[in-house]
């Protein structure tokens, strides 16, 4: 029996109130309509890769990384057109080399297409445990409904055929060529055809067809399902209309998080499924469907094993933990949507691909070493003045090449010292730099992100988070930072 064996999700800490967008631009369209709620906004140092890492870490809380033999990552906002995101992510979450990685893109349905591919690979016996993640940071052009609607977030599942928490009982797929919502290779912002046609010809018709199709296939009626979890378009009213047309009771329909997160693109339906699984009981049947250049529909059945995977930050945990972005201008700055005066600071040197590759274990998976002679865990920043990684000589007993690997990424740490630096350049000033002492030993200096500058003190407990540092000369450069314990 193939199905979901674990779930995880991530919602960025920051939220932007739609009232603030209204303050900046006035209402939407001729009627001056104001849109309620708020949307989740990736920090200036987050993108689809970093958010996927968060959701996967949440999902793999009790999974041995060595048992994962596939990583599929779906997004319409991959940082590179030519260079895989999933190989990068697998290095960050420390998966083995002998795995199958693939990026899925091109459609908001990419996440469920990736899930279908994983299900088929497991059914066919090629793979056993496949991580499928989806994340998006889509942009609507300033002042438009798309800007009001799009939010940022991610979700991840592990699919397998042992200890399944929700089995995949059936699926139904339609492929349909229609450019209702799209973004060309040179576009920054999402485009849309006239919304009445987008909804009538596309969304409402195709999801109706796919959902009816999978229910007929299994001889099930709307009343048989505990929850109906399906993608919501930008106009959330169409989400409710579809439920009525299909015969679902509004209480059965999984909330689309429009009021709290916004439309997270490829991640949305999967994030909604995580939210549904957080509340699901053994025996529940869940209808799960996604839309985008066609539609995918699935019938899931929750098993007793669901109770074993409750320890997740998931949707509920991340929703509760939030901070409002001060104003719309901050959002524009974080998304790099307005040219800013350059900082009066020297330019950065180019990132070295060879140096990054050489130090990939330290940089991407935040590995340090532990001395086999004196037992001291130690981390050497790959860019410290006193040499480069890897560490060859023990910092305490000076033994040479007597190390075993020691992972710091999943360890908490306490702030030993810090400063708020007004001189260093950042889209979120001041730069808060910390010297951290890790639980179990080891020290390192790290940027402190998602912090409230007024609430930083010596001794504060922090955790590590993978973030994007900058884009320069064609290279997206990432590294680990510290943050306050999120949930």
């Amino acid at each position, binding site marked *: 029996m193939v199905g979901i064996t674990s779930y995880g999700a991530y919602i960025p800490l920051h939220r932007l109130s739609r009232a603030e967008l209204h303050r900046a631009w006035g209402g939407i369209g001729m009627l001056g309509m104001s849109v309620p709620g708020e949307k989740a906004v990736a920090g200036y140092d987050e993108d689809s890769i970093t958010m996927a890492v968060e959701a996967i870490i949440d999902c793999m809380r009790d999974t041995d990384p060595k048992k994962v033999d596939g990583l599929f990552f779906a997004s319409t906002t991959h940082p590179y057109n030519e260079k895989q995101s999933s190989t990068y992510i697998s290095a960050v979450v420390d998966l083995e080399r002998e795995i199958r990685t693939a990026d899925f893109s091109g459609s908001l349905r990419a996440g469920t297409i990736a899930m279908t591919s994983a299900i088929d690979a497991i059914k066919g016996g090629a793979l056993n445990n496949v991580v499928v993640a989806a994340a998006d940071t889509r942009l609507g052009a300033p002042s438009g409904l798309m800007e009001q609607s799009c939010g940022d977030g991610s979700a991840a599942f592990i699919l397998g055929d042992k200890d399944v928490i929700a089995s995949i009982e059936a699926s139904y797929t339609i492929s349909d060529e229609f450019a209702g919502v799209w973004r060309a290779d040179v576009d920054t912002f999402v485009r849309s055809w006239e919304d009445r046609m987008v909804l009538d010809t596309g969304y409402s018709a195709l999801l109706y067809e796919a959902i009816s199709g999978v229910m007929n296939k299994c001889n099930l009626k709307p009343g048989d399902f505990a929850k109906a979890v399906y993608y919501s378009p930008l106009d959330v009213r169409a989400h409710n209309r579809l439920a009525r047309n299909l015969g679902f009771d509004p209480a059965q329909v999984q909330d689309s998080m429009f009021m709290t997160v916004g439309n997270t693109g490829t991640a949305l339906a999967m994030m909604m499924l995580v939210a549904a699984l957080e509340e699901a009981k053994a025996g529940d049947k869940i209808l799960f469907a996604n839309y985008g250049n066609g539609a995918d529909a699935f019938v899931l059945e929750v098993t007793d094993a669901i109770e074993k995977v409750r320890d997740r930050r998931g949707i509920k945990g991340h929703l509760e933990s939030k901070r409002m972005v001060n104003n719309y201008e901050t959002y524009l700055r974080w998304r790099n949507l307005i040219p800013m005066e350059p900082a*009066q*600071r*020297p330019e950065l040197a180019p990132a070295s691909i060879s140096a990054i590759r050489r130090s990939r274990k330290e940089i991407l998976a935040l590995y340090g070493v532990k001395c086999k002679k004196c037992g001291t865990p130690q981390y*050497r920043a790959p*860019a410290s003045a006193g040499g480069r990684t890897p560490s060859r000589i023990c910092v305490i007993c000076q033994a040479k090449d007597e190390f075993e690997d020691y992972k710091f990424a999943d360890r908490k740490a306490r702030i*030993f*010292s810090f400063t708020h*630096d007004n001189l*260093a350049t950042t889209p979120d000033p001041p730069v808060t730099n910390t010297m951290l002492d890790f639980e179990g030993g080891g020290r390192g200096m790290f940027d402190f992100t998602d912090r409230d500058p007024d609430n930083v003190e*010596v001794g504060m407990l922090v955790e590590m988070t993978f973030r994007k540092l900058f884009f320069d000369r064609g290279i997206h450069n990432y590294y680990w930072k510290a943050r306050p314990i999120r949930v």
Partner: protein
Amino acid sequence: MAEGIKDKVAIVGAGCTNFGELWDKSISDLMVDATYEALEDAGIESKDIDAAWIGHWSETSGCTGMSLSGSLGLQYKPVSRLENACATGSDCLRSAAYAVACGACDIALAVGAEKLKDMGIAGLPNQYPLGTPMVLTNLSAPGLFAMLATTYFHRYGLSPQEGKRMMAHIPVKSHHNGFLNPKAHFKREVTLEQVLNSPIIAWPLGILDCCGVSDGAAAAIVVRASEAKKFRDDPVYIKALQICANPADGARRTDYDFTHIEATYRAGVAAYAEAGIKDPRKEISMAEVHDCFSITEALIMEDLQFSSRGKVKEDLEAGIFNLDGPLPVQPSGGLKCFGHPVAASGLRMLYEMYKQLQGKAGPRQVKDPKLGLTQNMGGHPADNVVSCVIVGL
């Protein structure tokens, strides 16, 4: 322990340019000005120099010994370029002193020069070597040193207000001295309140807790002690010259307390041993130290054993290190007011000690000094190299 070079090497000439934003001077100008002042002071010509060491940190200035031989027109002499961050100047002196001490040459020249004000922006240039993964880029020098203050305040139970007030005594004192120094970059007095209220650069350091970034050069001419009187009646002798590079462990080992700089302490201990000093606070007459930030100077006072651990606050409040106090520190104004052209600073500190010992320091003359100490630090609190030089008549 090795024999050391105490009283084996003498400084017979020294030069130092004005420090500041010298928009009309190139690094070559600065090398020529500092060296020719030193040559004139020693009563020799450039052709008399047997070997030279030039230090500059910024790679924008050219990278070989030719930056000096070309500027001075030195004719086919051995010239090496040295770089040890902010401790570069002292390291040039070390090479020159060792060369004459061992007899490899008779007259050696050490020059430190830096041209920082050609960038169009304030602060220091980034110096990322090739092959840097560029993962710790959001660090400024004030930010790195500010973490010392955070930890010092925490360890000794100082509130931010108390801690900032303790630090503020340092720039007030140094600005007073710099005000008296015609070559200083910043020649104005500041009050305690001005320091306390200056805009925060990197919490808890305000802008008046930070030293200036300047252009400038300094030079010294050294000979064997036995020859020194042939050049002048009042040569200044090197009593100790120690450099200590830490193993870049401060950001890696959890037992480092971040309330002292181990390399400063060890360089001091080694220098006191070489010079035969038992009680530094009593025996040292005056010092020029690496006050890149006020907290750095506070810790140096403890590391050099001028103040007991955790007690520098009392000494600062009592004015121990003021120009009229028992142990004047930064009679020149220090990095804070004289300015800090990175590679020149170590030799600039030496220049001040040399002039003070000769009684030529004008209105900022320290009364009857016997031994002067310079402490010069390159790097930041976790990874650094520190020199400690003691000179006397």
